[in-house]
């Protein structure tokens, strides 16, 4: 495929309304757990607030000269408060953490599911680093917020409301004095949020870029060593990492400026409460003890107010992460193109695939396919040949339903998949060999999850892979893929063909499936391919003309069009494109060109 979009386009981010709706949707089935968690946390906070009245009571008892013995009861009560508060806090935190973690697991699972169902081109434009950064960084940020910030917010809000109520009970004028701090706090919060939103956005971009660079570098480590580019690539990671550090430090400076402004609010409020106390004591409307209590109450507000306001930061950060997760999970409408429609009107039972007036362009104005008409008869094996860039892979991908065509249709015969509506109608094996990390059996089972060990062995045997598979350190349980046992390209391609046998589609599309293995394994793979295709309708993109020569029919493409179609014998003597290709190919075979 030669369609490459130059611009990197990150996956979407949800707006606040969408994010909120998604949170509600996730919480609804866990309402009981949410209520239990909230109730327990409220209880824990309320019990904790008894500490101050009890301490005040001790002061009163001493002031009233009630003797040391009277202090035992409030002290015991203080211990009781501590024990109850500890127990309820442990329970409440455990409940809210369970709530948060299960919601998070559901969210990240939905997220990966949607991501895997995204159109291939969209994911490639975004880069896999964007996705990985979301599934690691964002998930852990949201988790941290859910585990610590949310319970803290509830506790702080309760503490603030109850303490302000207590201040008003002492004298309403104390409350007025305390509220003098509010305008400064409100202005500070506004000041902070205005700067924090764009800053966090760019921090996230910097972190995503760093993650992508790390993945690229670690994944290509062997190639980097080969070319002695260690220094250059280390430098690239260093730049990304340092940029991320710089932008994080900008965030730190912002939050610290925020605290400095809050210190001003604390001082103003405290001075006002002390002044009010003095004035109220002077005109006799309050006692010294009441004034003291008011000042201590206001002082005890510092922590919950700071905690609540600093949560703006955590919640902002978690909210941004959440929006990036929800942005993907909400993409329900943009799934893969529907599989080529199984046409009910097609009564010709001999036709397996019918391609009509098919055209495709990866980028507007740069079509790579023009008006392709092609019919595959049931059980027919058709080879697609042509020079690199002729549009063979694009046609293969369109027939396999990986992309939707820009124009024209691909139709599959209904009778092909009438036995099981969920079975795969068209299987595609490309030159890309990816061995999934995990056991060899798990890798194969991706194609058919319910396959038993005998079925796996049978599939491996058909592609000539059983011998080496059984010779692996732990046979089919051997961990393969990146980080596991490294398979040769030929083995990886045999695995791909074994997966095709397990998936068992009536139509198979092979896109240069023997190319990556290198020539040494090609013979082996051609035999394996023949086995894998037995009994299927097949379209084979072939660059080894020996493989094309054995097909039922050969279709030659050039410049996005079909230029020739026919059997090997007919085309090789027709003097057209194929005859040229065959001459070049067979010429080297006999050494006549050199």
């Amino acid at each position, binding site marked *: 495929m030669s369609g490459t979009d130059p611009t990197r386009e990150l996956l979407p981010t949800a707006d606040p309304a969408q994010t909120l709706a998604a949170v509600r949707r996730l919480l609804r089935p866990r309402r009981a757990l949410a209520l239990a968690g909230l109730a327990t946390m409220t209880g824990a906070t309320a019990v904790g607030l008894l500490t101050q009245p009890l301490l005040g009571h001790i002061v009163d008892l001493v002031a009233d000269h009630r003797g040391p013995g009277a202090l035992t009861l409030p002290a015991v009560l203080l211990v009781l408060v501590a024990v109850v508060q500890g127990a309820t806090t442990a329970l409440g935190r455990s409940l809210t953490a369970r709530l948060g973690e299960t919601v998070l697991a559901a969210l990240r699972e939905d997220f990966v599911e949607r991501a895997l169902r995204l159109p291939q081109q969209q994911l490639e434009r975004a880069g896999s680093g964007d996705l990985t950064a979301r599934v690691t960084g964002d998930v852990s940020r949201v988790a941290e917020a859910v585990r610590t910030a949310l319970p803290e917010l509830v506790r702080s809000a309760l503490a603030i409301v109850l303490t302000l109520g207590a201040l008003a009970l002492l004298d309403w004028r104390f409350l007025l004095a305390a509220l003098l701090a509010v305008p400064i706090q409100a202005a500070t919060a506004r000041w902070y949020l205005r700067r924090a939103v764009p800053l966090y956005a760019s921090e996230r971009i910097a972190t995503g870029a760093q993650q992508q660079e790390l993945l690229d570098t670690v994944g290509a480590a062997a190639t980097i060593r*080969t070319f002695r580019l260690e220094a250059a690539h280390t430098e690239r990671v260093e730049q990304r990492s340092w940029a991320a*550090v710089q932008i994080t430090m900008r965030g730190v400076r912002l939050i610290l400026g925020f605290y400095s402004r809050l210190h001003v609010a604390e001082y103003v409020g405290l001075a006002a409460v002390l002044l009010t106390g003095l004035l109220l004591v002077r005109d006799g409307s309050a006692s010294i003890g009441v004034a003291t209590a008011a000042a201590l109450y206001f002082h005890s507000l510092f922590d919950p107010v700071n905690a609540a306001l600093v949560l703006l930061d955590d919640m902002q950060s978690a909210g941004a992460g959440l929006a990036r997760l929800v942005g993907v999970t909400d993409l329900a409408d943009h799934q893969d193109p529907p599989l080529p429609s199984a046409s009910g009107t097609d009564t010709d039972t001999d036709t397996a695939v019918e391609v009509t007036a098919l055209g495709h362009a990866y980028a507007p104005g740069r079509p790579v396919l023009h008006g392709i008409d092609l019919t595959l008869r049931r059980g027919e094996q058709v080879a697609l040949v042509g020079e*690199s860039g002729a549009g063979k892979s694009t046609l293969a991908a369109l027939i396999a339903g990986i992309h939707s065509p820009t124009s024209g249709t691909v139709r599959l015969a209904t009778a092909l998949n009438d036995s099981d509506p969920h079975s795969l109608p068209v299987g595609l094996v490309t030159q890309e060999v990816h061995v999934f990390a995990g056991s060899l059996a798990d890798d194969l089972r991706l194609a058919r999850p319910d396959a038993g060990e005998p079925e796996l062995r049978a599939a491996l045997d058909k592609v000539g892979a059983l011998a080496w598979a059984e010779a692996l350190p732990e046979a089919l349980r051997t961990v393969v893929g990146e980080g596991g046992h490294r398979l040769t390209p030929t083995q990886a391609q045999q695995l791909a063909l074994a997966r095709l046998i397990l998936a068992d589609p009536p139509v198979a599309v092979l896109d240069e499936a023997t190319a990556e293995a*290198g020539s040494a394994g090609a013979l082996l793979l051609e035999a394996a391919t023949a086995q894998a295709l037995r009994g299927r309708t097949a379209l084979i993109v072939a660059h080894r003309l020996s493989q094309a020569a054995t097909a039922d029919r050969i279709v030659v493409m050039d410049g996005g069009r079909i230029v020739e179609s026919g059997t090997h014998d007919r085309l090789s003597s027709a003097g057209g494109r194929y005859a040229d290709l065959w001459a070049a190919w067979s010429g080297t075979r006999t050494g006549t060109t050199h």
Partner: protein
Amino acid sequence: MRVSGRAVLGRAVSGEWRDVVTGAVLGAGHQAGEAMVPVLIGVVVDRAVARGSLTALLGWLVVLAAVYVGLSFSFRFGARAGERAAEQAGHRLRMDLVRRVLHPAGGAENGRLPGALATLATEDARRVGAVNTGLVFGISALMGLVVAAAVLLRTSLPLGLVVLLGTPAMTALGHLLSKPLEQRSETEQERAADASGVAADLVAGLRVLKGLGAVPAAVERYRRTSRDSLAATLRATRAQALQNGLVLALTGVFIAVIALVGGRLAAEGSISLGQLVSAVGLAMFLLGPLETLTWVNADLAQGRASARRIAEVLSAAPEITTAQPLPPATPVRGGLRLRGVGHGSLRGLDLDIAPGELLGVAVADPADATALIQCLARRQDPGTGAVELDGIPLTALDPAELRSLVLVAEHDADLFAGTLHDNVAAAADPSTDLAPITAAAGADEVAAALAQGYHTPVSERGRSLSGGQRQRMALARALAADREVLVLHDPTTAVDAVTEAAIADGLRTLRHGRTTVLITTSPALLAVADRVVLIEHGRVADTGPHLELIQRQSGYCAAVLA
């Protein structure tokens, strides 16, 4: 190089000691200021409110303002120093990890997914760095405790002693309680890394999944991994919640003890009511630093767990070792000699490659090719026998130096992020004229077919290009590196026959007079070689020109002609 988790942690702190010390000193100042606020409230009540003196109030409010300015600024700059220490230590660890992974001797990637390594370099490096912030805040909190204790000791000796002896006991208990959390946290982090590694791996193989309609099965697999991760996390959070509750209860009991002791002293008349008020105020203040100490403890636990994981990678055994590197022969002539090499499927392979020769190596069994490439590239050293470059064993050459002389371009090489041009020029001398090289590799046609030509960006390690396009770009990059010895493994398998023949001619011309080894079964490439060697069953079975072998060697025909 063995590195312990403790050493990783130690370096993360000592490397930033200036910021850590600055942060701790200023943070201590901040805590002292915070401790002074309740004391000053008591003083204001005593000296101004009780006496109804507005001037005294204004005077003490000025003092309070001065304390506020001090605590505010010391917090601002102290915390900044702490965060800077954390970020910079995290950055340095990240770079240490990257340097280890890219080290010429290799070995760090064995057994680890790229996604898991990336998580290690981001999340775990951040957690270890955050130990610096933890230290700054922890030391500050301790300082707050000391100031409060000093004031309390001046107020009353027994009360001060209760605080001074009680606090270390509390901290020790907190440390003890966070031990199980540390173990839980370790498994939690491993599971989380596993879950994200699986996600990254599935995304990397997405084309394969889509081709087989295996996306639902892949989703199911991720869901299972995520559930395992969830179960581990839930166990960890339960431990954490329990620890939180226990510490909170302990703290409350501690304050009750202070209130009881202080109350009794006041009731006996050994301290004044005002001193009781400030003692209670200070006891309330102590909650802050004590809570700080508990989260610092938890952060240190996470940091230790992460440091151990990082240390494992940093001290991963290298794939190859070079005891005393010898300098390569000067000038480099480019002669290669294999003597009885036994490695993988190779069985005592003997092979002489003359300087400047264009040698074709046809290999019947792909395993032989893999083993041969591993030895030539020094990705691994052969178990028996030796490979020599101009008479010097490769094992005696510094691997980085070796690779600047011998380039082994592997069949499945990745392209780098950047443009096509960046890739071709990646390892080339800046003065190299790339035009003849890209023409020889057929890469100029690739660029011509793309809208942005050589400025076309490469994404996903080259997956955005077709196999044939990718191979030609990789070949151009290998040729442009212009090494004395070039080993190419199956460079044209995804290229059509006409282009392949042109590339074979281009290769011969461009590499004229310099050692070039073509490990392939492509007749188009083997036909241009000076000499072809056939390897069967791990040994050289025959040697001669391509045409001659075609005519007389049936094994060769079977390997090369399909």
